[in-house]
């Protein structure tokens, strides 16, 4: 009985041992798995911290979940891609480095890389060409000593400026060895933000600077010439207008702008000819290219600000080139109002003078023919005829005399005048004697109370007075009163000749002293050459006197002559 009991005990013991062994094995395996899962978690955490994220918490994934989710696999796959990307980036960096090296070697500027102590780390070929020479190696040498050669003071040292300020610095026109450089200094920093290098670039701008100086001088010269040309153009009394082949106004001087009321500076673009406020001128300029001649001349009438008419002669010079044909037009507008008026007055004068000369000449010829006829004339008749011939010949002489006087005065020969004290009343009477016979229908009044002595040339004064009274007679109606009066004041004597004639308008008064001007040239009933008052004015001014005209149309005219009087 005990044997089976022993056997049974032995079996139980074996089972126990086996269980114990299994338990031990299980504990070992569990410890080993735990170590393995711990290792995986640890590695996953390491990798996650490299990526920069939080570590894996055990509550997020239990051990089986950890294996199932496979973070190591995910991260290792991701790292595989990161590595690929790094390789590609590295390749690009190599390529970029080669590119930079090529630029560094071939760039037109000298480039120096300095360490924080100012010693040369590297430099390109151009640095040798421009700054240090071919056979010199300055690697590791101080830039101050070997580049600037101690010629640049500290306050202008670009390396020191970049180092101290920590940012890019520029210095233009740095003169070195006879050349001029634009210098740029740029700092480079390491990952801790410390200055690692300073890159200096030197661009030789000597040629550009010389060109700039030359260009500046040329520009200044051009501006001066331009200003001079503008000055000349604007001081020209004529209007100058330049147009191009497209009909645009290229240039106008100030005079032209005033005349045409168009300011070129006000217009953003060059205006077209059509903008000119004068249609005839526009047509003239438009037609210019079609004309065969190079110079076109035409008169144009412009209205002045106060409504008066101004005549301008346009002289358009057409610019043609053999290659491109019509290039434009230079038009000069010269005011010819006065010239045209003189032309008109000369024509009037010729017809007037012809009329004035022919009338007495006809009489002379008529009476001379009578005397030459075979008929017997009584001595009285003969005398009458001869007196008439003499009178008309004198008239002819007067007209010719006036013309000669004007001609002599204007030619600058001057007048041989001798101022002497003259009795004004006696003068007036002497002159009026002649008019009593000629103009018996007029009434002459001398209203000079006190004896007045004036200082004048006798013959000139007589001529002045005859002309003034002659005008008063011609332009007064029959029976009109012509009054001579005098006022003496402040050493001057004012002699007035007043009539009750046709009178003059203010325009007529303004022009009364003009040569050949006649108030009403069409009225041939009133004889005259238009020279009387011109001669009066010239003779009075030559004796330091003054002539003044006051007149009202239809009421009469008063001519006042002012002469120095002789004090007692």
């Amino acid at each position, binding site marked *: 009985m005990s044997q089976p009991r022993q056997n049974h005990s032995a079996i139980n013991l074996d089972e126990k041992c086996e269980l114990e062994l299994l338990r031990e094995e299980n504990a070992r395996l569990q410890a080993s798995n735990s170590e393995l899962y711990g290792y995986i978690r640890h590695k996953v955490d390491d990798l*996650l911290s490299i*990526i*920069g*994220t*939080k*570590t*894996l918490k055990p509550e*997020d994934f239990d051990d089986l979940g950890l294996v199932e*989710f496979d*973070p190591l696999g*995910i*991260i290792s*796959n*991701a790292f595989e*891609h*990161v590595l*690929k*990307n*790094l390789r*590609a*980036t590295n390749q690009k960096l190599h390529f970029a480095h080669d590119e930079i090296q090529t630029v560094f070697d071939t760039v037109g500027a000298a480039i120096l890389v300095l360490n924080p102590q100012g010693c040369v780390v590297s430099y390109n070929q151009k640095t040798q060409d421009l700054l240090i020479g071919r056979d010199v190696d300055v690697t590791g040498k101080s830039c101050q000593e070997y580049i600037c050669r101690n010629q640049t003071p500290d306050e202008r040292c670009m390396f020191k400026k970049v180092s101290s300020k920590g940012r890019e610095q520029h210095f233009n026109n740095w003169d070195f060895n006879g050349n001029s450089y634009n210098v740029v200094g740029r700092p480079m920093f390491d990952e801790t933000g410390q200055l690692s290098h300073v890159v200096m670039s030197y661009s030789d701008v000597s040629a550009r600077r010389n060109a700039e100086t030359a260009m500046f001088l040329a520009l200044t010269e051009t501006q001066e010439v331009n200003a001079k040309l503008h000055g000349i153009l604007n001081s020209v009394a004529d209007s100058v207008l330049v147009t191009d082949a497209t009909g645009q106004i290229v240039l106008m001087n100030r005079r032209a702008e005033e005349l045409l009321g168009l300011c070129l500076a006000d217009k953003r673009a060059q205006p077209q000819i059509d903008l000119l406020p004068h249609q005839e001128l526009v047509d003239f300029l438009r037609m210019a290219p079609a004309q065969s001649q190079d110079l076109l001349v035409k008169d144009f009438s412009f209205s002045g600000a106060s409504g008066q008419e101004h005549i301008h002669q346009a002289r358009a010079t057409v610019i043609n080139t053999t290659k491109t044909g019509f290039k434009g037009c230079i038009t000069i507008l010269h005011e010819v109002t006065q010239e045209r008026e003189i032309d008109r007055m000369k024509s009037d004068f010729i017809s007037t003078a012809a009329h004035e000369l022919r009338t007495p000449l006809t009489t002379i010829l008529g009476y001379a023919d009578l005397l030459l006829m075979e008929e017997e004339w009584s001595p009285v008749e003969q005398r009458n005829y001869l007196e008439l011939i003499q009178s008309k010949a004198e008239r002819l002489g007067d007209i010719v005399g006036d013309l000669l006087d004007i001609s002599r005065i204007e030619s600058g020969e001057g007048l041989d005048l001798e101022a002497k004290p003259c009795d004004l009343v006696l003068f007036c009477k002497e002159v009026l004697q002649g008019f009593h016979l000629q103009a018996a229908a007029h009434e002459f009044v001398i209203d000079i109370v006190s004896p007045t002595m004036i200082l004048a040339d006798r013959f000139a004064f007589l001529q002045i007075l005859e002309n003034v009274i002659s005008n008063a007679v011609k332009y007064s109606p029959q029976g009109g009163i012509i009054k001579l009066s005098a006022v003496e004041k402040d050493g001057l004597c004012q002699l007035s000749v007043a009539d009750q004639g046709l009178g003059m308008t203010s325009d007529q008064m303004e022009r009364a002293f003009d040569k050949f001007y006649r108030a009403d040239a069409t009225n041939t009933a009133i004889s005259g050459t238009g020279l009387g008052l011109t001669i009066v004015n010239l003779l009075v001014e030559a004796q330091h006197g003054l002539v003044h005209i006051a007149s009202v149309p239809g009421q009469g005219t008063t001519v006042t002559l002012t002469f120095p009087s002789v004090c007692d």
Partner: protein
Amino acid sequence: MEIIEIDIRGQVCPSSLLLALRKLNQYYAKIASGDITLVILTDNRDATSTIPDAAHNMGVASAVEKVDGYYRIILRQQD
């Protein structure tokens, strides 16, 4: 070009990053060639920096847009 949207809202770090990386790994070639744009929807603020950083290291361009209460992280081919 195909747009694939992955919704990992509710996930926190690091699982949101790991989930995004798993999809990035899966579609990497097509994202790099420009055939696919991956859009990750997340409400985890940390993920708006960790995912784009990881994508950048892998050579993938990223952009983050804020939508109502969550973020859209767009992962696509680099220019």
